[in-house]
């Protein structure tokens, strides 16, 4: 089932990713998670796919002042979450796009241009995207020098593994792991970090 997370404003974007914001009440209701696959429209039938690489909430002067009180007033908390336009910022790394029904694990030709609803991909879409090609989208994540690569991949593979297993394909995660081993064969520290995170994420999974 598709769930929509509304964004208040597209804060910034490029062909390698974008940052969007949503209001706290919406965030609480349909909370996205690190590593989740999302999509944003790009005009016509085209969709950009991305992985969530960061979610953060900025403070501001009033919030900093509120915490100086002895016990933060519940009504003030509710007012801040419901009424104040302090957005939750969601950073998304572009990992592919869909055009004319075909999925490509390449960077999109252009970023989203207008404020649009980001959609959390459902299990069906997640399976379709992660099954297309041969994990080409992993390279976009591995290229990220400022990203918690291990955690993002682990979280993403955990979610995809769950979706594939539900559809009777538990072997997907093993294939994904083997691809990571191949890609990181010349970077032993990174490989160990990724496999360690995967082990934490998927428990008794064997590579």
């Amino acid at each position, binding site marked *: 089932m598709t769930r929509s997370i509304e964004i208040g404003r597209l804060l910034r974007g490029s062909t390698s990713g974008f940052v969007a914001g949503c209001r706290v009440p919406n965030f609480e209701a349909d909370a996205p998670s690190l590593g989740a696959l999302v999509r944003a429209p790009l005009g016509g039938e085209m969709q950009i796919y991305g992985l969530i690489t960061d979610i953060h909430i900025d403070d501001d002067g*009033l919030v900093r*002042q509120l915490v100086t009180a002895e016990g933060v007033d519940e*009504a003030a908390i*509710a007012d801040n*979450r419901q009424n104040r336009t302090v957005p939750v910022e969601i950073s998304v790394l572009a990992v592919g796009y869909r055009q004319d029904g075909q999925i490509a694990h390449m960077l999109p030709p252009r970023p989203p241009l207008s404020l649009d609803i980001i959609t959390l991909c459902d299990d069906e879409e997640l399976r379709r995207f992660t099954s297309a090609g041969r994990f080409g989208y992993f390279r976009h994540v591995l290229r990220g020098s400022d990203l918690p690569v291990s955690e993002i991949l682990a979280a993403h593979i955990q979610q995809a593994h769950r979706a594939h297993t539900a559809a009777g394909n538990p072997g997907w995660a093993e294939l994904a792991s083997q691809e990571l081993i191949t890609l990181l064969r010349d970077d032993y520290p990174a490989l160990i970090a990724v496999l360690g995170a995967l082990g934490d994420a998927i428990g008794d999974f064997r590579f």
Partner: protein
Amino acid sequence: MSLDYQQVREQVHRLSQTAPARENRLKALRQRAWGLMQANTNELDSLRQKVRTVVRNHDPSLRCAVPAAEPLTAHFPPPPLPKHLVLLAADGSQIFLDRHALVEYFLINIGTIQMTYGESLPASITLLSDLHYGDDLHVSGAYPTEEKVSLLRDLRERQKLADLVEQMGEPAITLTDGRLELWGASPEEAGGEAGEGSLQTFLEALARLQAAGAIPAGYVDKPGEDYLIRLLEVASQPPEKAKDRPLLGVRDVDLFRRILAPGERSAVFEVQSRFAGIYRRRSESFAPHFFYLNVGREDHPWLARVDLLAWVAQDGRKLDELHAALVHQCSILGTRPYPYLLHRAHEIARVTPDEKGQLELMIANELRRHGIIVEESNKQFLKNLD
């Protein structure tokens, strides 16, 4: 070219040289004022009589405190917060007309926020943005100066509060920032016929609030007034010397800081002024009053002045509710006590410079679409080059 720090530095240095002597002089005056306050604390009838004599015979423009029913040095702890209480705060901002800009217009923005104690619903907010252009520019037939636009803003705040209280159908405390009176020290600021119209509008809003059982209050942060000091000067001098200011420089807060523990309010005082007379002529229940309130801590007292009207000042229950609500509201903001809802109302109403710029472009583009030429002044264009 900016500030000449060398010039300013010398002036700051001179200022600091005289500051200690001034402070010593003020200390002595404060002590004298404190002595007068204590000596007169229970002389309420005598004080009222002296004020009447001065106003009638020597200084009709006297502006001072008049004791109501409580001794001058009385202080009252915060009452418990009622289980159910509705608070409404309103604040306004504006974009003043700028004849140098692309388009001549002005905007009034009124933000309100309502919170109900005893209910778990989040606060509800409203925002009213009122744009004036073309034939709407003139305020009561006059060019919209900054003073007139500010006056209109203040009127709209009170009207909006009255609208909301009437819609709610239950009594509420209504808070605005600054003094509750619409104008300052003199009726002349009302500005003739136009001012009279504004005053009537304001008084009608007050009447609506009263009819709805509301408790309107004006909150004055860091007050600098000397209403009580003026009363003490009147008390300590013969009436014909009423205009002399032997305690000039001492402020009311200098005295109340000695009396009020955290959360306590002072005695309630009535305001003697020419404007107060105008309000009283409309209704005795509109007579302006005030009290001081310590919203700070033991180690850091912080005094505010709360303006209220007679119908609240003379109602013990309403007064207690207002007192309790303000103490709680100020506690929400921790080390910088100020009513939370008033700050939020300000946030809601605020128009940022960016928004102002976008609004101006929006209007300009719309006018150009209709073939109307819009152009900023050369002066503004050159300023924008910075």
